[in-house]
């Protein structure tokens, strides 16, 4: 098994973990250095235990914005050779390179970390009768489930995830995030309870251009997992983030629901709240809860969902995890702790704690709410 080869137990047992998250978003699309989000994570050091940290940046690959950027961990050279044969078959590779890193004593045992800018092979795509995104999803799932020692941890366009075992601030240094600029960043520090930590198991978890950072431990995990696996997803990591990402992908990309509707499903209002709504709204909410009942997520979570052109912050329906959101000019910030926000921007126009189940969705000016 892949995960064993990567010196971890992830994917064989389920590992609960506590966490810290932070995010920033520029509505006007202005470029912000990755350093800002790394600094925000620094003040929440105690919310992580050094067993996982990571970031996602959007708008970071403008020169390749129409290509899928695959970020891949390899255990060793032979795994890389094996996997690259497959990548070459499935995709046209426009550019490939090692992801630049800065050695630090606090991050060790790194795998081989490579990046490929690719487009689906035209003929293969036609033969598959799939749309481009679905083609990429299947290729990624294929690599992650059947290629030992290879793991694709980022696969979106003009975005990328960067993650490792270590404290988030060290992960930021390691990946030289100060050299990237994007209009949206999310960050994550992990506090897993019983694992040596595996690089792939760190957050964000990404699929296409969705990335999720998450703090919590969902109690609905197996109900959600067993449902979503009916639709071609394969939960290999047994982590909450993985299943939440697949749920969001399924609801937005496959069911064409809006993010507000996604929030109404995964953090559905209580029936008593639904009863108190006007008839049309009541019917809408009842429909969503009934039709997608197995995708309700219970237990504590706060998530930041990044996607092309937008970001969503969402808490579980009881708000069992802290999360604050703030605004300053065109900037929107979210974090587990206000301190992290103040680190990014000491003077704020507005700061508040969204209610449980109440999504905060921000998009680029002129952009629609829907991800696609």
């Amino acid at each position: 098994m892949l995960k064993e080869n990567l010196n971890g137990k992830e994917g064989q047992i389920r590992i609960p973990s506590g966490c810290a998250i932070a995010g920033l978003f520029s509505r006007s699309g202005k470029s912000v250095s990755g350093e800002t989000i790394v600094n925000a994570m620094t003040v929440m050091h105690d919310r992580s235990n050094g067993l996982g940290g990571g970031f996602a940046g959007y708008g970071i690959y403008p020169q390749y914005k129409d290509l899928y950027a695959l970020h891949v961990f390899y255990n060793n050279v032979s795994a890389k050779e094996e996997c690259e044969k497959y990548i070459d078959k499935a995709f046209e590779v426009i550019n490939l390179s090692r992801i630049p890193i800065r050695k630090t004593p606090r991050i060790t045992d790194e795998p081989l970390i490579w990046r490929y800018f690719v487009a689906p092979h035209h003929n293969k795509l036609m033969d598959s009768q799939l749309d481009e995104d679905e083609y990429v999803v299947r290729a990624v799932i294929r690599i992650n489930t059947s290629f030992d020692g290879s793991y694709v941890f980022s696969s979106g366009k003009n975005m990328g995830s960067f993650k490792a075992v270590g404290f988030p601030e060290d992960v930021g240094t390691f990946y030289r995030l100060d050299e990237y600029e994007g209009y949206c960043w999310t960050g994550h520090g992990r506090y897993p309870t019983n694992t040596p930590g595996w690089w792939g198991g760190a957050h964000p978890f990404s699929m296409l251009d969705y990335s999720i950072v998450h703090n919590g431990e969902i109690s609905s995990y197996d109900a959600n997992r067993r449902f979503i696996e009916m639709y071609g997803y394969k939960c290999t990591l047994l982590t909450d983030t993985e299943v939440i990402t697949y749920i969001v992908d399924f609801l937005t990309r496959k069911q064409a629901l809006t993010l507000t509707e996604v929030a109404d499903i995964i953090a559905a209002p209580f029936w008593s709240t639904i009863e108190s709504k006007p008839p049309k709204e009541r019917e809408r909410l009842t429909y969503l809860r009934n039709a997608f009942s197995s995708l309700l997520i219970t237990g504590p979570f706060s998530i930041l969902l990044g996607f092309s052109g937008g970001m969503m912050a969402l808490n579980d329906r009881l708000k069992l995890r802290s999360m604050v959101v703030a605004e300053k000019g065109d900037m929107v910030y979210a974090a587990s702790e206000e301190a992290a926000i103040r680190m990014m921007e000491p003077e704020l126009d507005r700061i508040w704690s969204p209610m449980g189940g109440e999504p905060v969705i921000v998009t680029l000016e002129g952009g629609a709410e829907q991800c696609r």
Partner: protein
Amino acid sequence: MPVDFMYPEYEIARNDSRCIRCRVCERQCANEVHSYEESGNFMLSDESKCVNCHRCVSLCPTRALKIVKSDHCFKENANWNQAAIKEIYKQSGSGGVLLSSMGNPERYPVYWDKMLINASQVTNPSIDPLREPMETKVFLGKKPERIERGPDGSLRNNLTPQLELAMPVMFSAMSYGSISYNAHESLARASRELGIFYNTGEGGLHEDFYQYGENTIVQVASGRFGVHREYLEAGAAIEIKMGQGAKPGIGGHLPGEKIVGDISKTRMIPEGSDAISPAPHHDIYSIEDLRQLVFSLKEATQYKKPVIVKVAAVHNIAAIASGIARSGADIIAIDGFRGGTGAAPTRIRDNVGIPIELALASVDARLRDEGIRNNVSLVAGGSIRNSADVVKAIALGADAVYIATGALLALGCHLCRSCQSGKCNWGIATQRPELVKRLNPDMGFRRLVNLLTAWNHEIKELMGGMGINSIEALKGNRLMLRGTGLNENELGILGISHAGE
């Protein structure tokens, strides 16, 4: 022949110093066990007639009575036990098939008792149902494959008819005839009060109970007794009964002596004629025939009602359920081998079928493997005994459960397993007016409401402990279960890990 004599299984222990000769026991026993000996002013009992239903014990005002197991015994034999020997005597005397009532009482494993439920500690908070909302409402029925939007972009309600249950428990099929009018009234009124459903069984629907139609599931079984257009339209859902856990593969038989008055009218058969339901539906010899009946019933009711297909848990249940899930049915009800009955051949009841826990787990897994779990809801029955069983069934993958024996116990049944005699002293499984009136529906309905209200509280406590505040997040959530003392195969079928893993 003396060989036919059997020493009674039970003895009536009467504390004579407490007995006040009020003769309540004598009046209450339809089996005529008790009698009064006037000359000597003492009570007699004929234990050979006693079925151990505790009616006399419960009504004795001075607690002078108890029933004890007889210590009369055969020579010990681990192979030829007492029951095996007695059954030989009975059959060699009568030449008949042995009959029994209620669910399989034999020593097969009860998997519910080998599964344990999870709770939150530290990493994830438990939720207090007294302080936070805790939801047990469920909808049964097919879920849409895709959403649809109207011209203005709003979501269209493209759901097929659904059943809305305030809690994931329903009363399963028991016909009017097999149980009494008062028992039916209790079930109907309790269902309305609880926001759930009861099931007519194959006996039609008494005209007095049409008013409870919104909480009624009307059954269509192989005999088609009592089925007509108004009947189908009266219920909230229609259940096709293909099989029953207590007697998979065979039909039903309500003897002519029970087909009297309203029962004959409700079943639409002449008084005194036996009501014999054939073993198969003679219009269903294969899965494609089932599809036709499903759609015939939907046509007859303008596609306004969900259709349930009830099957007994048998060896090949996963494949059978997969076929049903593609037949147009909205709900599959699976009845395990412990499920009850008003009368079944003993050999069938005690030897045919499989445990509901295994059947449910394998059906749920198969439907998910095939990607069709959303086509149908799953209802598990036979037998669910308490709220923990409900929680375990839902965690294995059920949408809701059916209970019947538990409901009858709430109405006073003492599980004497003599329903086939028609002399139920508790007024449940009888049509004798003087016995039926012992079951007061005002009290019966209240007891049913109490029972399920209590279960609902317990379900919420168990859910809260797991950090789950809505029942849909428990459905199929097998990580919440662990097995004890189960082998690899059993764990694999149940899809759960062993405790400690």
